[in-house]
């Protein structure tokens, strides 16, 4: 059941260049799965008007974590929220990552704040699945951002474009050459990265991507978030945000 919960800020730290880690304390909502997202209200008044979609970065009982980058007015307002301030959060929304089987080998590839849903995924399946995690940033991020991913992955590689953390370069330069050895490949990040990644995998049905599109509502009533699939229109908030590599087309 989707709920509109009121979260109290208990942490809203700058953890990188314009990147923030937010933790909200609220009531415990049942059945929240990795890959799902929330719509965060950024203010009580009517400017800005819409809520902002954010992946769930981590969930710990009644605590919900979000990792976000300040890109515009809404995220700027979010970054100003202080402890004890309240934020309304509609969740859980969207589908989720596929169920992972015991002992599967899963390649996880994340770019920037796109690691948010991946973090939840790895945290969720940490005891059962073998994760090989590759994440890249444009510049420095502090350890809280990737601590879980590092701890719960068999292999963990981090890179940054300016070399300020991990290897220097884009993360796709560091992922394994042979992608056939993985049972599943799960990724989230800039669309350019996703596009290149999917290209490199032969069996597109082993790839799962979390996509973004501008959203009005987040629960299927406005039809803003449409993307074109092969033969039909898909809505990121309803049929997604997680799509199988076979569903997505990358022209334009």
């Amino acid at each position: 059941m989707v709920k509109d919960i009121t979260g109290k800020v208990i942490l809203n730290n700058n953890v990188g260049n314009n990147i923030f880690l937010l933790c909200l304390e609220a009531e415990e909502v049942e059945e929240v799965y990795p890959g799902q997202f929330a719509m965060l209200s950024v203010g009580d008044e009517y400017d800005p008007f819409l809520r902002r979609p954010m992946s769930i970065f981590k969930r710990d009982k009644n605590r919900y974590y979000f990792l976000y980058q300040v890109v515009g007015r809404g995220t700027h307002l979010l970054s100003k929220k202080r402890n004890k301030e309240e934020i309304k959060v509609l969740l859980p929304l969207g589908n989720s990552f596929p169920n992972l089987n015991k002992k599967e080998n899963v390649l996880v590839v994340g770019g920037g704040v796109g690691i948010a849903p991946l973090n939840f995924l790895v945290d969720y399946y940490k005891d059962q699945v073998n994760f090989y995690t590759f994440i890249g940033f444009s510049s420095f991020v502090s350890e809280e951002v990737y601590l879980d991913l590092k701890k719960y992955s068999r292999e963990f590689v981090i890179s940054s474009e300016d070399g300020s953390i991990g290897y220097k370069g884009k993360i796709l330069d560091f992922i394994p050459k042979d992608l056939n050895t993985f049972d599943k490949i799960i990724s989230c990040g800039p669309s350019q990265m996703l596009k290149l990644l999917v290209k490199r995998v032969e069996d597109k049905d082993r790839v799962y991507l979390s996509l973004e599109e501008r959203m009005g509502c987040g629960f299927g009533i406005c039809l803003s978030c449409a993307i074109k699939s092969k033969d039909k229109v898909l809505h990121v908030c309803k049929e997604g945000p997680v799509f199988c590599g076979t569903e997505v087309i990358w022209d334009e």
Partner: protein
Amino acid sequence: MNNLEVRIGSLIFKNPILLASGTCGNGREINKFYDINGLGGFVTKSITLNPREGNPPPRIWESYAGILNSIGLENVGLQKFLEEEMPFLERLSTNVIVSIAGEKKEEYYEIARNLRGCKISGVELNLSCPNVEGGGMLFGIDKEMVKEITKKVVKEIGKPVWVKLTPQAKDIVEIVKAVKDAGGEAVVLFNTFLGLAIDWKKRKPVFKRIFAGYSGPAVKPLVLRYVWEVYEENLLPIVGCGGIVSFSDVLEYIFAGASLVQIGSANFRDPWIGERLVKEAFKYFEKERVMDLIGIAHKNYKEVEE
């Protein structure tokens, strides 16, 4: 009779709170949040004869206290609508108004014919589509066209017909007269305003079609002005729509002359807004009837001025 009840034309609404076309899906999605039978009614997403994919992204853009949208009437088309949505709609115990759109006159009529036998309260004509036969001008800005389409739909459907006006029409009152002459039961003021946003980083229009539909709190004073003007003409009941986000907005519309209101963009921010407004209406109208207060601001104004 309950205080919230509103009668317009041949329909009875248990309260004046409706949800607007294109902002509540086909009812099902909102019904997950609350029982939509508690509403006065709602209007389905506009359907067209054939399925439409809609416009390429971006389809929505935020402005100050308002949004611009360019959905492009994405919908499954009449056939699938009848198969997949109608059974749910027919089981509801509130007013379901089906919104119809088309690029050719004949499309409106064919849809109307197909809806004749359905258990729905009526239809709302969305005339804010470009008329492909008529050179791409909107149907809704041409009073002859409005009259012609409305008349024929009224005949074909045998149910109440509402016409949703576009604020782009140059003379709103003329259009309302046309609807009245053609047998429409109410006018809905308004569909979205034409607006533009420029992506200053890319230095080009945000939307592929340049202009987009502007809605949200920002448009409220503009729509209220026309509700007032149309009410003064005493032609047809008015359904007010534009920028409602709170109960005081609802009151402004009713006092200015709207018999019913439709909630649009606000559903995106708060899926429960319809239910909440109904609750507030119950409280506010404990001792007075909505029907007695429609347009009350006109009377009060005249009393003060005289």
